């Protein structure tokens, strides 16, 4: 099987995630779209690992997942903190860098 199908799916998923990040207004949904983009990249990494017959891509995909988990934890804490001060989870409302 040629890897083009996997790479094509990964490219399309990445673009979909980018659209979501740009279009969606709720910060949590923006996070979901970022997760989608990270997963698309993971699919590419695993495919590349498979093409080269090495393990490095899989290990990197593993690392990306761990960093994504850390990112979600900190991001949700920030969203909660913004929600507490501004009573909104919309990315359009958080227009100030200082509270």
């Amino acid at each position, binding site marked *: *099987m*040629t*890897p*083009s*199908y*996997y*790479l094509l*799916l*990964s*490219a*399309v*998923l*990445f*673009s*979909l*995630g*980018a*659209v*979501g990040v*740009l*279009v*969606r*207004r*709720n*910060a*949590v949904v923006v*996070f*979901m779209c970022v*997760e*989608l983009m990270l*997963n698309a990249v*993971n*699919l590419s990494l*695993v*495919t590349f690992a*498979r*093409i080269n017959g090495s*393990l490095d891509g*899989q*290990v990197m995909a*593993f*690392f990306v*997942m*761990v*960093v994504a*988990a*850390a990112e*979600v*934890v*900190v991001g*949700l*804490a*920030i*969203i*909660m*903190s913004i*929600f*507490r001060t501004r009573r909104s*989870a919309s990315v359009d409302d958080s227009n100030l860098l200082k*509270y």
Partner: protein
Amino acid sequence: MTGAELVFVPLGAVALGSSVLVVTTDQLVRAALWLVVALGALAGCFLLLAAELVAWVQVLIYVGAVVVLLLFGIMLTRAPIGRSVDLDSGNRVAALVVALGTAGTLVTVVVGGFRTASIDLGDGSAGSAGTVGAGLFRYWVLPFELLSVLLLAALVGAIVLSRRDIGPRARDGGED
């Protein structure tokens, strides 16, 4: 069509369709649930690529932990459970341009670059926990240990950010 392609096509279709729904649905909770479907289908793709450990870690971390956290985030920010009207912001044109640009670039560069490559799955043992673990602890020990420190830092940071009595507001003397 080979067997792998026969399995891949429905998996890819499910991943694609549910991702479109994540981006377009007008109900927040459903977006999270469609994300579960998309991530599960991607885990199936990892299994097809014989990346067994990555697939199960994907199910554990993403489907198990990240989506639950996102659902908690939706609930804690008191998002409306039903339909919401103002979910999309006004920059659809910019999003369309960016999407077409990214998709075009990625498809021409990455897919075109690997047009002649082929996947040899071997005996399927290259992605097993034993092989990945051996590679991880033989060549990737330092990044692995750094990641454990990063996880600890993220944990402490999240606690400091979300607790009111020790957060930035309390230190500032502000009242929330």
